[in-house]
């Protein structure tokens, strides 16, 4: 298919709270991806970076920052910022460059260093800033995840035990991932003993923020064949669609949804629209998916994603979980990397880390986490301000 590009290499700096400069993580991930691909740095003609907004000017021009750190060699650069979807948008830029024939092989890389403590908004009296408004009124990030979780309980009958079971499942498989930050196997009792943050979510239901870096080397199919890697996993689709008015779901940092009062306007749930374009572009349906890496900012959110990806009918993800179908060895394993539960969120690297995991899984190189016979994988994530993405990788 003319829309496909090859993934020749994948690399990650382990997630953690290392306290180093983000550039160091990005360079480590890029070097690992280059070595994995067997592609010399000098041959990379496009560097596409995911921006970090927490690390000053070098973070705003991350593509150039990484290119300089790896040694200027004349490659063109790009930097993408799309919140949690930054890595996917950076990958889409590289794909465009490759499919247009302007470059054969590209590096896509994202890395982040998170500050210690809360990221509070600027002070003063600033009611024009929705982030200021919601904190002033006592609405924090966990509020939104808890609202989604509570709707699952009241509408579908999900329980606290279900949410804890997601954590137990992900921590078990994540304990086998050397790149994960949290590698302890937690029990349902551990989750139940952790402090309630925003009912029904406890501390262990909610993901942390981490340092980390992830990188991919991608190329035209022709280049892949030329270097003897014609069988490399391929990016079959990238969706970075924005929402459709009117959004009927309360989204961080807003205090209200859109109004769907106008004639001809319907309320939409953004998350479920993100994978639609990916499925259509790849010519692949939910029934073809072997595994998925989804953005489990909370345990309950993993269940929402399973339904948004149409891997279960609406309201039935918990039944899949209870049957063991979403665990390693189940019918449709979800987050066999360990997910955000084991990694913590490193925003510009996270979407790429999801694709790294799919790459290793599709090559059969995931070791103790290997999904047998994995052929097609899908990622999904959603962040602030109408940014979200879904990427399909296939053999």
């Amino acid at each position: 298919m003319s829309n496909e590009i090859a993934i020749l290499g994948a690399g990650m700096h382990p997630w953690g709270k290392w306290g180093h400069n983000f550039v160091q993580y990005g360079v480590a991930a890029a070097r690992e991806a280059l070595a994995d691909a067997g592609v010399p740095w000098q041959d990379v003609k496009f560097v596409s970076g995911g921006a970090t907004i927490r690390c000053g000017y070098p973070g705003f021009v991350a593509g150039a920052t990484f290119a300089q750190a790896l040694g200027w060699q004349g490659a063109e650069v790009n930097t993408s910022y799309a919140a949690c979807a930054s890595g996917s948008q950076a990958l889409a830029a590289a794909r465009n460059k490759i499919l247009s024939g302007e470059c054969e092989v590209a590096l896509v890389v994202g890395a982040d260093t998170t500050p210690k403590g809360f990221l509070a908004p600027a002070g003063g009296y600033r009611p024009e800033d929705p982030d200021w408004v919601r904190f002033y009124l006592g609405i924090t990030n966990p509020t939104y995840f808890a609202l989604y979780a509570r709707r699952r309980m009241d509408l579908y009958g999900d329980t606290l035990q279900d949410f804890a079971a997601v954590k137990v499942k992900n921590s078990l498989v994540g304990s086998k991932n050397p790149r994960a930050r949290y590698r302890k196997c937690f029990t349902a009792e551990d989750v139940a003993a952790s402090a309630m943050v925003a009912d029904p979510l406890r501390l262990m239901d909610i993901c942390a923020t981490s340092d980390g870096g992830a990188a991919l080397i991608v190329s035209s199919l022709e280049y892949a064949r030329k270097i003897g890697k014609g069988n490399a996993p391929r990016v079959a689709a990238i969706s970075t669609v924005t929402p459709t008015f009117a959004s009927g779901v309360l989204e961080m940092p807003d205090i209200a949804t859109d109004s769907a009062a106008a004639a001809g306007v319907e309320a939409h749930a953004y998350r479920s629209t993100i994978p639609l374009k990916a499925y259509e572009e790849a010519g692949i349906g939910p029934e073809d998916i072997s595994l998925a890496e989804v953005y489990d900012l909370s345990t309950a959110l993993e269940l929402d994603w399973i339904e948004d990806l149409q891997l279960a009918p609406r309201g039935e993800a918990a039944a899949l979980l209870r049957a063991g179908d979403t665990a390693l060895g189940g019918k449709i394993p979800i987050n066999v990397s360990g997910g955000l539960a084991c990694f913590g969120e490193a925003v510009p690297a996270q979407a790429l880390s999801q694709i790294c995991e799919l790459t290793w899984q599709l090559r059969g190189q995931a070791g103790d986490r290997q999904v047998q016979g994995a052929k097609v994988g899908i990622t999904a994530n959603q962040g602030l301000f109408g940014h979200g993405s879904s990427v399909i990788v296939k053999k």
Partner: protein
Amino acid sequence: MSSKPLVPAIEGWHTMEAKPHLIGTQCQDCGTYFFPKQSDYCRNPECESTDFCEVELSRTGKVWSYTNACYKPPAPFVAQEPFVPYAIAGVQLETEQMVILGQVIEGLTVDDLKVGMPMELVLQPLHETDDDIKVTWKWQPLAQ
């Protein structure tokens, strides 16, 4: 509570009467409501209107979802000492077809709430300053 004057925590976002309303705007072309107020452009992709008027939003609706805050939020939130957890609800307004978030009145917990429960808007203190008491909108179960 002291005898300090009651003033809105955020100026112009709600009326101050006993049965208060949130103040939004409505597009005069397509009928879309906005809260907070939007008077410069219409976000309906089918509409290019620049004509808006202020409207009082419905003061009753049904719970879309709910949670609570077990820990003190960071500034600009001003917490009581000691911090008292409070419930939070998103309430769906029928006419406006939108969900609006707010705290739930003091003394109620998540055990008192349910998706679909009828709620109404009231005013309660958010915090106190040297000069006045800042009040804001909160949701409370609709008196039957």
